């Protein structure tokens, strides 16, 4: 391949792909076969981190940034005046293999602008994955975009070569989508998602009967929503997210704070801040839903439509539900332990194990790694020292904030002063 040409394309097409935040490379079970190249059995590996602190685990590029659509929020929209480029199938294969051999990456994340038609685009994405698997005997991770509108046959083929498939719904509500991408309909995104979900279920069922059934997208599918581009509140966003987790068996929903890239007056102005703190709070909520046994309606509902920015969502929930506390760390069940602010799931497991040997006191909890600054107001342990005052929620919140320095302090005071 011609070095200079490839170099130029890589710059353009990596730049265009970077707004897709998914970087997961785990959850597949693709082992190295016949002494080929690569292995995707273990946990994912972040090989590097960009200066914005995001993980680099996959070669994340677009096949092309030519696109027939004009979605306002997208940097490769048709009406945007920028340099366009397109990779050849072989170029992507060579880059992937050579980066992988040097241990730069876990695999490939290939997306694309839509050129000519959905099928034409999807066909090329599939061709790259097929070449990697069949000609290069590549067993690393491959994440392909499902192109809305592509034929079922192509989607099925994609799933046979890829570890993960994803289609980004981008805008959390239908009303928002109508405003920013009038050419697109919610169903267009849903259709490939349903197709992939059904294929996964079918292949898994067959695999139980016939061992040699090939893997179909073993790392499942995911989607992404842009935050702060179309005016949705956190309640709407998390309801959509919950809906997708429940109905389409998604592995992940990603939240991407909108990075202003357009002078379109339907969108936040260029230069306005990326809502990173809000994005963080949404991820925390997502985790509470998936790993901490919370129902989304406990955290966000008609009364509380937006997440607090100054405290994390679990603390915020606990402050609204003081009647559930304090709990005794030596007797409480797992479910309640997981609900104590300052206790992560790792600490919960350590506590459950450790308390079988002796009753735990503050000293033990501190060594285990519990954030006592928050947790102390919500629990008692084997000690006669505990919070005896009958504190109100506001008071507790004040005490906690007083004794902590948030990594978001700077951002927080900025955002508050904006509205203050």
């Amino acid at each position, binding site marked *: 391949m011609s*070095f200079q040409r*490839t*170099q130029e394309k*890589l*710059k353009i097409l*990596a*730049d265009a*792909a*970077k*707004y897709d935040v998914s970087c997961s490379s785990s959850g597949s079970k693709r*082992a*190295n076969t016949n*002494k*080929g*190249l*690569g*292995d995707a*059995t*273990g946990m994912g*590996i*972040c*090989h*590097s*981190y*960009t*200066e*914005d*602190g*995001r*993980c*680099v685990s996959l*070669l*994340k590029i677009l096949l092309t940034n030519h696109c027939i659509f004009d979605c306002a929020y997208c940097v490769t929209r048709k009406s945007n005046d920028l340099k366009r480029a397109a990779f050849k199938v072989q170029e992507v294969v060579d*880059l992937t293999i*050579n*980066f992988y*051999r*040097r*241990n*730069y990456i876990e695999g490939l994340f290939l997306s694309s602008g839509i050129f000519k038609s959905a099928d034409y685009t999807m066909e090329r994405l599939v061709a790259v994955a097929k070449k990697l698997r069949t000609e290069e*005997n590549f067993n690393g991770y491959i994440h392909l975009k499902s192109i809305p509108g592509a034929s079922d046959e192509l989607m099925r083929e994609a799933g046979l070569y890829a570890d993960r498939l994803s289609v980004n719904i981008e805008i959390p509500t239908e009303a928002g989508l109508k405003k920013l991408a009038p050419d697109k309909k919610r169903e267009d995104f849903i259709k490939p998602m349903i197709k992939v979900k059904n294929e996964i279920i079918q292949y898994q069922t067959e695999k139980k009967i016939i061992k040699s059934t090939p893997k179909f997208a073993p790392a499942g599918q995911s989607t992404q929503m842009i935050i702060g581009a179309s005016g949705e509140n956190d309640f709407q966003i998390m309801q959509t997210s919950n809906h997708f987790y429940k109905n389409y068996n998604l592995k992940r929903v990603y939240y991407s*704070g909108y*990075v*202003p890239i357009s002078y379109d007056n339907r969108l936040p102005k260029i230069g306005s801040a*990326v809502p*990173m703190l809000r994005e963080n709070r949404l991820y925390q909520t997502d985790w509470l839903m998936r790993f901490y046994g919370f129902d989304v309606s406990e955290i966000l509902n008609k009364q509380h439509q937006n997440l607090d920015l100054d405290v994390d969502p679990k603390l915020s929930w606990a402050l609204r539900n003081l009647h559930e506390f304090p709990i005794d760390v030596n007797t409480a069940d797992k479910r309640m332990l997981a609900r104590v602010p300052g206790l992560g799931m790792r600490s919960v497991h*350590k506590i459950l*194990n*450790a308390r*079988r*040997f*002796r009753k*735990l006191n503050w000293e*033990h909890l501190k*060594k*285990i790694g519990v954030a006592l600054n928050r947790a102390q107001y919500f629990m008692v342990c084997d000690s006669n020292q505990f919070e005896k005052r009958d504190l109100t929620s506001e008071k507790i919140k004040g005490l906690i904030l007083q004794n902590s320095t948030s*990594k978001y302090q700077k951002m927080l005071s900025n955002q508050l002063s904006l509205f203050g």
Partner: protein
Amino acid sequence: MQAKNLIYDGTFDGFLSAVFYVFEHKLTNVTIQNEFAMQQGLFSDVEKITTEEVKANRVWKGIKSKLSAKGSYQLYYAFLSEQIAVETLLLDYIQYAFSKAHNVDKDYSHPSILKIAQIAKSVGREKHRMEAFVRFRLTKDDIYFTNIEPDFNVLPLIEKHFKRRYADQKWVIYDIKRGYGLFYDLEKVELINMDFPENFNFTKTDDSFFAEQEFEFQKLWQDYFKATNIESRKNLKLHIRHVPKRYWKYLSEKQP
């Protein structure tokens, strides 16, 4: 009773042989030290331990029967940390484990067990970092070569990972801090010692040793690394937390 100081040869088997000696002689006031990192105690009685595989295996089998798989690998991980006096902690843990009828490896409120779990955790983290931060460079002899300087002796832990992953290419991972490396020849992995030419610079890719295309791919990788960054989200503090500066000198994307 006078304090006894057991000196072993630095290997895991050597350490286990010393543990065997402690149990055999029912020693109570004892420290175990690596002969390369030995500190002479003023009033202690020094005993040199010979490494015996049979004894080591017996101790290891005993440990495995007392602990869960995770518990025993935590002991091995902690041993590879090479931290000063880690042997004493390990011995305390092992003695405690043998003194109880039940499995103790989750007794996190016991000081030695928590400490070993924590050390094992940092060794595990270093192992994972090496799996991430190794950057192979293709030599003129068609071998993918990398040099590393891990905080802990993690080469024995990462062998399997790289063997499984790069089954169809020859590679060398060389620990220049400890002076040994792993060489995979498409069949098996061997421990090797290498002599480097005097003018060999570990951070530079020199065209007298490395293949021509190596420069192109390093450049492409650097370009990719820059292009995939979102300037308006810049967060150097987070960046450095994930990629601590001490690893930068061998990361191709961090080279000027």
